[in-house]
């Protein structure tokens, strides 16, 4: 498979001793944004993956240790944030101003 699995929910079955998980949620005006497009860009700003947020505004990527950028696109606006990820769980929030 190559489509994104359901976003959010438990990390059951994910081995956090080997996986570098980058996850979080997209917010706007005090509420989570469902159906936002969130893309993960590598250290050279090149596209690596994209998911659509869950009804609770959540997204999740399986990356590798290093520097990444998250960018969200939605009808209510866009947001961007850099993150340095390590093996294990890396959590962040994207706030649309």
């Amino acid at each position, binding site marked *: 498979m190559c489509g994104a699995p359901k976003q959010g929910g438990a990390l059951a079955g994910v081995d956090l001793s080997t996986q570098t998980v980058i996850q979080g949620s997209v917010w706007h005006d005090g509420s989570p944004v469902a159906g936002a497009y969130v893309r993960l860009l590598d250290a050279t700003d*090149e596209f690596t993956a994209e998911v659509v947020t869950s009804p609770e505004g959540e997204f999740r990527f399986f990356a590798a240790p290093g520097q990444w950028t998250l960018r969200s696109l939605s009808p209510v606006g866009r947001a961007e944030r850099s993150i340095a990820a390590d093996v294990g769980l890396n959590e962040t929030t994207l706030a649309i101003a």
Partner: protein
Amino acid sequence: MSRSDVLVTADWAQENLGAPGLVFVEVDEDTSAYDGGHLEGAVKLDWKTDLQDPLRRDFLDKGAFESLLSAKGISNDDTVVLYGGNNNWFAAYAYWYFKIYGHGDVKLVDGGRKKWELDGRPLSKDVVERPATQYSASEPDTSIRAFRDEVVASIGSKNIVDVRSPDEFSGKILAPAHLPQEQSQKGGHVPTAINIPWSKAANEDGTFKSDADLEKLYAEQGFDDSKPTIAYCRIGERSSHTWFVLRELLGKSDVKNYDGSWVEYGSLVGVPIEK
């Protein structure tokens, strides 16, 4: 063949919903998107359960493809208008697949579901029923499909375009980063392949870049117009997106999609790999 023959805008699609002779088809791997709302009158094809052989790693055979399209109510003379999520990856795969089985008129909606949603265009939850047809497919056209031996034989001679992300090309990660990194294959790429990620051919809203921008992109990355081309990714859907760009939008000759892609190549015993 030019852009206007194979690609329609979201505006055109919205104006032509329900037009006779057109069948809108949403193609996704996860069809919950379709179930939550789709273009009015569109039928769905599930990339995995509808388009893959249930046992072997391959397409449906001709008879099974005919049965599928007949059951979906698609006729040979219908114009099939495809769209989907993931920046049209699976819709582009279906486009290539329909061409392998010889469907005449197939188009993609530029930007797919993403642009449609970002534009706030209407979606419907109505159940779509179309009367069954008697679809007749052609014998598979393998001039647009590459198999593993041809890929190995093409090292150093054809354009081999690896359309995965740079981190997959280098072997840093083994799958697109929305999937768990648990694969049995080796990391890396086919020797002499050039890395032109599919994403460089698309704008952020999922629409394709202009022909001029696309020509420039491939030329700058060392694409040689005088050579035949094989595109691959991990399982063949992102490379369908690039196959569509090279053959259908830019009109390059002799372009094949290697749908075995890295999941197959990276598992083969004895083939050369570069990292």
